[in-house]
């Protein structure tokens, strides 16, 4: 199983802080599975067409997917995926 964590405004769409998913494929597959589960608002935030949008930051075990293969990043049993909106601070 994959542990999925949601943060900040992403929680407005999922109405929960975390979940588990099958997600035996790629990050892209996982986000599609989650879009089915949470509906249009989540999907609109997570995707631009078929590509993962720039409005979300996705970490797999703490690594931004931009540095691990983007949506094609493969997931393994026991991975933790964290989904954030674009945020900033100081």
């Amino acid at each position, binding site marked *: 199983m994959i542990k999925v964590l949601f943060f*900040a405004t992403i929680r407005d769409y999922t109405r929960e802080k975390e979940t588990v998913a099958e997600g035996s494929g790629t990050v892209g597959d996982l986000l599609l599975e989650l879009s089915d589960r949470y509906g249009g608002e989540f999907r609109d935030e997570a995707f631009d067409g078929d590509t993962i949008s720039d409005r979300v*930051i996705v*970490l797999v*075990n703490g690594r*931004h997917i931009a540095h691990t293969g983007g949506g094609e990043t493969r997931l393994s049993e026991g991975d933790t995926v964290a989904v*954030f*909106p674009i*945020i900033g*601070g*100081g």
Partner: protein
Amino acid sequence: MDKFGKVLRVNLTTGTIGIESLCEKTMKEFIGGRGYATKVLYDEVPAGTDPLSPQNKLIFANGPLTGKGAPSAGRYMVVTKSPLTGCIASSNSGGFWGAELARAGWFMVILEGKAPKPTYLWINDDKVELRNADAVWGKDSHASTDALLDDVGDSKAKVTCIGPAGERLSKLAAIMNDKNRAAGRSGVGAVMGSKNLKAVVVKGSARPYVENQDEMKAVLAGAMEKLKTNPVTSQGLPTYGTAVLVNIINQLGGYPKNNWQGAYFPEADTQSGETLAKDFLTKRYSCFGCPIGCGRVTRVGDREGEGPEYETIFAFGVCCGVERLEPIIEANYLCNEYGLDTISAGVTIAAAMELYEKGFIRKEELEGGPELRFGNEEAITYWTKKMGLVEGLGRKLAEGSYRLCEMYGHPEFSMTVKKQEMPAYDGRAIQGIGLNYATSNRGGCHVRGYTISPEVLGLPEKLDPVDISTKPTWVMIFQNLTAAIDASGMCLFTSFALGADDYAAFLKAATGLDFDGAAVLQAGDRIWNIERMFNLREGLDPTNADTLPDRLLKEPIPDGPSKGMVSRLPEMLPEYYKARGWDVKGLPTDTKLRELALK
């Protein structure tokens, strides 16, 4: 140049008050604020000056945009020689005080000497007088502000002042304006205390001069559009404040726990911006003219106050092993009242906890106070009070983490750079920010070159936090741009949406001087280099000063997503020196100094 505000020079020893004009050439080269004031300090305060002696100078400086029509442009800088680091101190603050100083017709206030007794400076437009502050000496920043407003008989005046920590010369003392906004870092409050200066109260009635109003309006329209459509400045910061970072930095494994003995805190969500917004936030706070409004007004029990920022949550929370927000918020309120820098105060308590747990601080020294153990909520508020009052063991804590750990023979537990406590990102997990800490002119600091933006948040580009190949250049560019923004009077947080060209356009409209993006970045480079020259003249030795605590260089992160990592600073530093045009020892070359007209 007087239309842009004048320079007020006050000798506190003699009570002499002088008025000077701004220099156009200096404004073009150093912009204002952090830049202009550092140039003055460099020219006027000789090497080797004791920071707490009358010979040190304390400069409050606006930027050319402070109090004008640009967004989030209410900021001023406090520049002096730091008693904490012995290096340049330049602390930035928002709120409303800087804008009021501009309305009163002043660009900069230079304070010299030492008043014979507690004194405050009252600036009422062009009427300036030194007044007796006996009645407020000893009072906290909130009570002092109320009493001083009564004393001048104008509730709309603005106050910047010190609390007991500054009066008692704590090296962690901040200068507090508008009660809760802080020029926080590097012990600037102690310099003010050493001069017997309790406060500067200001009231202005003029509209600050803008050279080209139509141009200003056009630039403003474009910038506002960018700020309104940028997700960070339009949603993230207003909704959650800076504390929105708690979860992402923790998920990445860069959230320094128990005095950097770890970098991952499973309980982080309990102290996140999300929890803060849900359980404690009563309203947002905006500084002068700011459309972002990242400030937090919070309530805990029957106390209402401001904060905490992300940094404060880290310092009193994870760094001290404390989980819940209530005691963290309480500690934040205490820092605002006593006038303490929250980052340095929290990180110093964390160092004390390590010293205590490892048996170096003895139980008797606590004099019945709560045990300095990681996770002890009571300890963070109790010892903040003692530190603010500089009494008991708090006397040692008030010296900061470096001197505290040295007193006990274990400087290796001090998580400082150039004796200043490091902020809330672990330089082992995020390589660029570690390089920025190591090279920061004011010691451990994130807002000299905030590479968290590209390394974690992916703005403006997504850089891999563990990769080091391009970090030296990125750190340098961020440091230069930040120096220029700090000099302009605008808030650094606007840079999530704006770039060098935007700041240049504002500066050009406000001053009529020929600024463009390249000139702004070059001014930032010049400011960085004159700060470096100030530090070198004070005897800074780059070999042991441009570094990180051994813990970050040699002790791998023990657990969490960044397990096993250490900082690769030794590989990055030579490249950074090269990118800066410095020699292999980290000294600016003649060519570089001539290029910047610093020689």
